[in-house]
């Protein structure tokens, strides 16, 4: 009987063992396999390095600096260790003695959470990492990442945009606004994975299983932006805003032959590294996202349209310019209430005569005027390679009244963006071609080979002879107009001032203006087209006394930089 019971017990145990083995090997097989793999294998995410953004000459505008994310492993620490670790980390992470206690408390709180790992601090420097490693702390780990580096500080912030940590992909980053936003896909790269077998000490086993999916670093961008031109523009704009007491201002410089943006600056600006310290309104790039009424700078485009259609000639005389013009019950006056009977179209531009423009507008008529608005690219995005471009709509043709055509002919009642305006003027500068503006000239792969080159796109919108005639009118406007005293001597520069009142609650505020100056130099073979714009300058409301001096100040330096000698 005893043998029977012994056998029964043994069989029972055998059965229990079989059940247990079945449970482990069949029911829990996948879970245990994954646990074993986690112990044998180490997965390391290889972060892709974000691509650089380089000036036209290859110097760095933005690159990446190595940084690390600091993680804590709360389960490996007891309460006393958590407090000690937090205090030691805080001493390394903050340079200020008075902040140590606060930071230590913050880290202790993070380490007290019921988690396996917790992020303690992002973007710590390699030096800080070294110091922490020397402390030989338990329960602390690092993960490699990178932080954007700006050798020129906050320069070209609106052009660049900024980078923030990607909440959907730990360790990765995401660009917003400007180039960082527009080219985020190209710049961010693709992270890789390294998976290899480890021994009991955690060292890699050479003949063990090894899987590597290489990280593909982000592509780099080579811009059309010239480092020196950008520096000159920013410095002059900053000084101009201060001098003229403007609320804000912007300058855009473009190569009329290629459409390449040579410089782009706007103030108030922000620091892309500490973007979170600035108001959100500063992030919008006013050159591509802000709409404004161009005022008298628009006149040259209306005259170009009329000349191109053969409806007027530069010497055509205006027969309604001897006094204010009445249209649909509205009276249109000149900016200084001076009138020139039988003035020529050239003098209309020189004197910035609104009545002369009403004459030209009538000659063109709504249909042709509207089609030229479209030809010059108004009402549609320029396709500039910056994320935040917006294009103000043009009213449908059917909604235009006679007075709308009259006011639009001198640049009021119509909205444009600065980049649309500078592009349209570049068509006059380059012989009639409307260029597509581009900030980036080339995209380079990680190994430095060109992935693709952005070719200039253009369409002919004016006859070359007409472009030449309008250019001569703009040269006369500079030489004989209100801004003649600030023009650099000896250089042939084409330009036009603009002073547009700002619409406020259905009417124009006479004391608030947008002062602008648009032009190009040297007029016969332009190296650059530039638009300077000040919002609400307080020293003078006129473009000729604010934007024009800044334009000529920048132009003087650019002509020197491009080694262009005076021609007159």
């Amino acid at each position: 009987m005893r043998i029977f019971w012994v056998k029964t017990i043994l069989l029972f145990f055998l059965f229990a063992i079989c059940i247990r083995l079945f449970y482990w090997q069949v029911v829990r097989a996948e879970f245990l396999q994954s646990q074993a793999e986690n112990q044998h294998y180490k997965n390391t995410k290889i972060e892709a390095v974000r691509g650089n953004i380089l000036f036209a000459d290859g110097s760095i505008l933005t690159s990446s600096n190595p940084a690390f994310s600091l993680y804590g492993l709360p389960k490996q620490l007891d309460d006393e260790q958590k407090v000690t670790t937090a205090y030691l980390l805080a001493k390394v992470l903050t340079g200020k003695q008075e902040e140590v206690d606060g930071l230590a408390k913050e880290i202790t709180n993070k380490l007290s959470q019921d988690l396996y790992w917790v992020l303690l601090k992002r973007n710590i420097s390699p030096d800080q990492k070294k110091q922490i490693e020397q402390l030989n702390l338990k329960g602390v780990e690092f993960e490699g990442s990178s932080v954007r580096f700006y050798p020129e500080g906050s320069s070209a912030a609106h052009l660049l945009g900024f980078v923030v940590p990607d909440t959907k992909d730990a360790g990765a980053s995401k660009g917003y606004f400007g180039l960082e936003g527009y080219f985020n896909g190209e710049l961010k790269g693709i992270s890789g994975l390294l998976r290899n077998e480890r021994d009991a000490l955690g060292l890699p086993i050479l003949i063990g299983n090894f899987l590597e999916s290489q990280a593909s670093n982000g592509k780099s961008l080579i811009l059309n932006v010239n480092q020196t031109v950008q520096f000159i523009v920013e410095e002059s704009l900053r000084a101009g805003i201060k001098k003229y007491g403007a609320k804000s201002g912007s300058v855009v410089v473009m190569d009329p032959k290629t459409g390449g943006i040579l410089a782009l600056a706007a103030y108030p600006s922000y620091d892309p590294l500490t973007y979170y310290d600035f108001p959100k309104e500063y992030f919008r790039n006013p050159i591509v996202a802000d709409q404004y009424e161009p005022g008298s700078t628009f006149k040259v485009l209306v005259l170009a349209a009329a000349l191109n259609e053969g409806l007027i000639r530069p010497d055509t005389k205006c027969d309604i310019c001897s006094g204010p013009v009445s249209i649909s019950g509205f009276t249109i006056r000149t900016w200084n209430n001076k009138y020139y009977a039988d003035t020529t179209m050239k003098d209309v531009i020189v004197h910035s005569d609104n009545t002369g423009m009403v004459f030209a507008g009538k000659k063109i008529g709504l249909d042709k005027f509207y089609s030229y608005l479209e030809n010059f690219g108004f009402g549609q995005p320029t396709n500039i390679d910056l994320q935040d471009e917006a294009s103000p709509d043009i009213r449908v043709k059917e909604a235009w009244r006679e007075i709308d055509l009259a006011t639009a002919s001198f640049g009021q009642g119509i909205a444009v963006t600065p980049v649309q305006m500078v592009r349209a003027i570049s068509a006059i500068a380059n012989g009639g071609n409307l260029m597509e503006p581009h900030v980036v000239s080339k995209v380079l792969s990680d190994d430095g080979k060109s992935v693709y080159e952005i070719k200039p796109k253009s369409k002919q919108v004016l006859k070359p002879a007409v472009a030449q005639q309008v250019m001569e009118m703009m040269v006369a406007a500079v030489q004989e107009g209100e801004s003649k005293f600030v023009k650099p001597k000896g250089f042939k520069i084409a330009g036009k001032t603009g002073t547009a009142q700002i619409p406020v609650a259905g009417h124009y505020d006479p004391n608030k203006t947008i002062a602008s100056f648009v032009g190009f130099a040297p007029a016969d073979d332009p190296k650059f087209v530039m638009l300077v714009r000040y919002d609400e300058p307080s020293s003078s409301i006129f473009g000729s006394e604010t934007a024009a001096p800044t334009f000529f100040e920048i132009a003087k330096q650019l002509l020197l930089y491009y080694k262009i000698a005076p021609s007159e």
Partner: protein
Amino acid sequence: MTIIKKFEPAEPRKTFSKKYIALVVISLFVLMVIEIWANNNVAVYGEKLQKLSFLQKTLNLENQILENEIAKQVSLTNVASKSAELGFSKPESIQYIR
């Protein structure tokens, strides 16, 4: 009665000779030694690989930091500030020679 057996030479036994056994034992021993040596080396090279990989990462980081430091030093913002410190100023009156 005397039975006289006819003398016939004994057929050689078909067994492994001691020589072969010794050879197999020695071979196994050599293989064992090689395995121990290889395992030992693999473990050592694993550590060396770890160190080399770490060194490569460190050098890459330092290279990146140095490149950025150069970019900072040659940046126009820095050059302008240095030149101002040294008393340089912008040209005021430019003479063009034809």
